[in-house]
């Protein structure tokens, strides 16, 4: 701890930080531009000047940049003395000489760090009466809008894009006061994390292009804390609504999960909820049903029939549990194939076993050597890839410790380590975005990855008896890898199920265990496909294929499908065969798809932004999302609410008697010990601050008495939220809520997202009150993981093994319905090695037929020289390539018979 004095007030603060960070966390409003809590300081913008005095008697002092000044004991500074203030005001004035007169049409306005800082320093009138420099803009693709005139040359964008996120196509051009931040040539930004530029840039140069379609100021949005529903990492987001539609997703800081950044799938995937394919009304046989008819029909079905339920990995825990309780445990299945169910079971068993640590993303950023087996994190768990990039700096940084530069001094440290990177080993069938950092890459077929990893496991387990079947080269490589992994302080193994190969998983586990023995903490991060895959796996339901075979043996009257399109998961014949044996098909979902078109009853459910619920991410962290708004139509209800009603009706209650606010989570915890503690994911239902709710709307929310005046002149009563800490209006507690509960970031003088700095005592650390989710791993009962004997390979004659390539844009269904994401999704392709292409006589960009089972797809050929022979890659579950069961085999250009 250091004792310092700021403007003659003594403070005791932690050492090792810079002065700017310290001032901000003390609530002192010190303007800044180029410093960023996750990216450190470079001292480029000169905005954070303070006066540092030698001691109490020094009256002159000297101006220093607070972000470059380490805190040390006895420091005596002034933030508010005349010279520091004048310097900061002058600096802003200069930055503004070329700034356009744009605020009224600038999407940053009202959430603009530059506006905030300008007001803070007191600059109001432009004295510089000469022409402004102007810049041409570039079209940077469907996600980001570029307006270069507004730049203040803080360099945050290129620092973030190139150095933090590893992007290559954004740079700075030209010289002196003409510098230009953009691409060498106009075109889509290639980095998967480009959307963070909109938050990193303190001005309106980079803004959210999807927000432009329905532009709303930050002060006009109704916002609530939410969880990204588009992958298994569960990044924390703020979702904003206006006039009944979802408008924007921004980052919500969770120091254990996503920190300050999101991926583009999560930021831009929200638009699915505004699409015309949304189901607006309940349907019976494709006809809109009134509530009475609907409930009569539903009561008749649930009371008199034997029903089975199909749970979904993208539905909330509450919805899945309500379904399970409605149909009974013995009739509850999950909408995964048999192999997928087995894989998720295995992953769950490993995570619960307590034998190895399951890392959070913050943990991942602390590891120092990485081995990736059979996953392409950039596409299957995007935000994790960004954490991996940071982890790979740890080893070189540690070596840089000798020069005694503090960890926030970004420029100096980058200069020192140059492009050195810690050890990263990747085994995947084709090149991935992380290959540029890899020490060693191995492009192998899935089974070969498993063999290679088993050999590595054996080397680690028994260094003296190396595996026999290795070539010399492979052996030398493996030895080197084993040595490095053993030497590292905290190695990380990343694997998962996206190649549908259980042996890769087993090998990853063995490697992690072997390393864990060496008196070093080892992390094993296993990637799952959907936002609630872990939550569903914890409910331990059999796979839907068990339901398929049950339907062919006994009579089942009805099936309830929860938020899933079976036709996307399984071949047409299989689903048709199953459904033909069933009289009543009830589907609950948000959006129309193949299965809803076959349903006898379709019940519209809410999206993640329209209801509250709990999701469990791949790290086992249960997290709560809160309804941002109540959907316009009363017919759209949370899935758990539909199911819970049906459950009560089945139990004999009349429609009028139904309990609308069940505490499903408490019931779940009571019933299943695996979920113990999950009620700590958020505050208790009656949570109030000073007897007040936290408002979802900022205090400057506008249009309250006009927004619905065209319908009726009297304002409707706002909806009441009885079971969350939030109110639906702008009324309520006006102070800063605890950071994890903040529905948006705002503090006096801080209108932009940078207001997050006012919520934190300690950047990147533990914050004021802990509601950052609750970890369910390791489980209460820790059983060792057992593996069955090796499975036989079932390659049938003439078929080629297919490998699914997951894509950040397109492979996840909900986000793929958002127009911006859809336009970036790949077209169906067939990826082949040179050898395979020659074998089939195929050339790049021509069309080829691929027959899988009874179905033939037409794909464009891509040649990937690095791919091994014997396999063909196709994009996983993109539009036009669905209904394929994995693992899969196919025939390329089959003879038509």
């Amino acid at each position, binding site marked *: 701890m250091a004792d310092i004095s700021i403007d003659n007030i003594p403070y005791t603060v932690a050492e090792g930080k810079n002065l700017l960070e310290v001032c901000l966390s003390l609530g002192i409003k010190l303007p800044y531009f180029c410093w960023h809590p996750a990216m450190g300081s470079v001292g480029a913008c000169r905005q954070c000047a303070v006066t540092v005095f030698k001691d109490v008697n020094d009256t002159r002092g000297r101006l220093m940049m607070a972000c470059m000044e380490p805190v040390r004991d006895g420091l005596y500074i002034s933030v508010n003395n005349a010279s520091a203030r004048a310097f900061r005001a002058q600096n802003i004035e200069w930055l503004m000489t070329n700034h*356009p*007169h*744009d*605020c*009224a*049409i600038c999407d940053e*306005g*009202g959430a603009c760090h530059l506006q905030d800082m300008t007001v803070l320093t007191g600059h109001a009138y432009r004295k510089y009466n*000469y*022409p*402004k*420099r*102007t*810049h*041409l*803009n570039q079209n940077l693709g469907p996600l980001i809008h570029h*307006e270069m*005139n*507004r730049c203040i040359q803080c360099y945050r964008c290129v620092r973030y894009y190139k150095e933090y996120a590893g992007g290559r196509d954004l740079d700075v*051009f*030209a*010289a*002196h006061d*003409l510098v*230009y931040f953009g691409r060498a040539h106009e075109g889509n930004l290639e980095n998967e994390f480009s959307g963070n530029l909109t938050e990193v840039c303190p001005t309106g140069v980079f803004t959210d292009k999807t927000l*432009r379609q*329905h*532009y*709303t*100021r930050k*002060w*006009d949005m109704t916002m609530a804390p939410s969880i990204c529903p588009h992958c298994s990492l569960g990044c924390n987001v703020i979702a904003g609504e206006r*006039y009944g539609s979802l408008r924007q997703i921004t980052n919500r800081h969770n120091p254990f999960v996503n920190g300050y950044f999101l991926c583009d799938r999560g930021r831009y995937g929200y638009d699915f909820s505004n699409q015309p394919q949304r189901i607006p009304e309940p349907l019976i046989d494709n006809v809109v049903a009134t509530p009475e008819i609907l409930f009569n029909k539903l009561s008749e079905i649930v009371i008199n029939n034997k029903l089975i339920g199909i749970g979904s990995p993208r539905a909330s825990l509450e919805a899945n549990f309500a379904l399970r309780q409605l149909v009974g445990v013995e009739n509850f299945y999950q909408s995964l194939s048999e192999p997928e169910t087995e894989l998720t079971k295995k992953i769950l068993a490993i995570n619960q076993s307590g034998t190895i640590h399951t890392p959070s993303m913050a943990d991942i950023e602390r590891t120092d050597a990485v081995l990736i087996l059979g996953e392409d994190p950039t596409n299957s768990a995007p935000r994790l890839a960004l954490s991996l990039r940071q982890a790979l700096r740890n080893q070189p940084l540690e070596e840089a410790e000798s020069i005694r530069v503090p960890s926030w001094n970004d420029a100096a440290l980058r200069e020192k380590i140059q492009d050195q990177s810690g050890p990263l080993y990747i085994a995947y069938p084709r090149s991935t975005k992380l290959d540029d950092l890899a020490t060693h890459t191995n492009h192998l077929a899935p089974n070969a990855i498993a063999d290679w990893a088993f050999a590595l496991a054996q080397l680690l387990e028994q260094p003296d008896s190396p595996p026999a079947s290795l070539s010399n080269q492979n052996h030398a490589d493996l030895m080197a890898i084993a040595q490095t992994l053993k030497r590292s302080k905290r190695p990380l193994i990343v694997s998962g199920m996206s190649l549908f190969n259980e042996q890769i998983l087993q090998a990853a586990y063995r490697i992690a265990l072997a390393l864990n023995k060496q008196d070093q903490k080892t992390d094993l991060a296993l990637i799952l496909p959907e936002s609630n895959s872990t939550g569903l796996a914890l409910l331990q339901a059999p796979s839907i294929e068990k339901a398929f075979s049950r339907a062919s043996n006994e009579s089942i009257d009805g099936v309830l499908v929860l938020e899933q399109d079976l036709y996307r998961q399984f071949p047409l014949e299989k689903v048709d065969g199953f459904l033909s044996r069933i009289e009543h098909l009830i589907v609950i979902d948000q959006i129309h798809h193949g299965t809803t078109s076959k349903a006898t009853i379709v019940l519209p459910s809410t999206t993640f932004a329209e209801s509250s619920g709990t999701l469990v991410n791949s790290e086992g962290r249960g997290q709560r999302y809160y309804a941002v708004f109540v959907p316009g139509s009363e017919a759209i209800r949370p899935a758990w609410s539909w199911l819970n009603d049906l459950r009560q009706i089945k139990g004999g209650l009349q429609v009028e008697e139904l309990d609308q606010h069940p505490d499903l989570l408490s019931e779940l915890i009571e019933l299943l010990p695996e979920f113990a503690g999950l009620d700590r994911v958020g505050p208790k239902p009656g949570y109030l601050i000073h007897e007040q709710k936290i408002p979802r709307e900022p205090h*400057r*929310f*506008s*249009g*309250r*008495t*006009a*927004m619905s*005046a*065209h319908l*009726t*002149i009297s304002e409707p009563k706002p909806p009441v939220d009885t079971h969350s800490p939030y109110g639906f209006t702008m009324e309520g507690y006006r102070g800063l809520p605890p950071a994890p509960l903040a529905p948006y970031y705002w503090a006096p003088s801080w209108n932009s997202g940078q207001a997050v700095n006012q919520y934190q005592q300690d950047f990147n650390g533990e914050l004021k009150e802990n509601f950052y989710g609750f970890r369910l791993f390791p489980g209460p009962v820790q059983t060792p993981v057992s593996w069955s004997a090796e499975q036989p390979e079932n390659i049938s004659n003439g078929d080629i093994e297919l490998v699914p390539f997951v894509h950040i844009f397109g492979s996840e269904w909900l986000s793929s319905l958002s127009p911006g994401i859809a336009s970036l999704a790949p077209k169906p392709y067939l990826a082949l090695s040179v050898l395979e292409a020659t074998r089939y006589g195929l050339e790049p960009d021509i069309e080829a037929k691929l027959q899988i089972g009874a179905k033939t797809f037409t794909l464009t050929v891509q040649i990937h020289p690095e791919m091994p022979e014997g396999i063909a890659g196709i994009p996983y579950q993109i539009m036009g390539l669905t209904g394929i069961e994995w693992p899969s085999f196919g025939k390329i250009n089959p003879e038509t018979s």
Partner: protein
Amino acid sequence: MISILRTMALTFLHLFHKKETIQYPEEKVPLRPRWRGRIVLTRDPDMGERCVGCYLCAAACPVDCISLQATEDENGRRYPEFFRINFSRCIFCGYCEEACPTYAIQLIPDFEMAEYNRQNLVYEKEDLLINSEGKYPGYNYYKMAGVAVGVKPKGGGSQENPPVNIHRLLP
């Protein structure tokens, strides 16, 4: 006693003063141009819609009776898709006019807005938009702003240099 007589005398004298009461509506009230009455949306000198959908008036309005949605034309020019004022709530404070950076929203000297049905006090953009520049002629926001949205090219403003050639590295 004296004070009562004095009061009566003064009152009596008023009979011979000029009358303040006018025979409204036959006779019209003279109103100053800055009188704050009915709100209109004006046009710029080129007869384009002045309102750029910045939401500042809505934010400034103390009774929250303005609601709008911004949208863009094919050139990227912002304008309001709808613009609604609920005059049954408006207190004619003029804050919206003060907040408006484009002179689009203006309060004019007209107060004859009475209605039998409250619902008719809800004005949409069609009811608000007039074919005139109103009180502030000559101003076109898009000529001053830095964006190119079909009004002027990048760098085409009077206080702007032509766009930077980013391949030039000379000092």
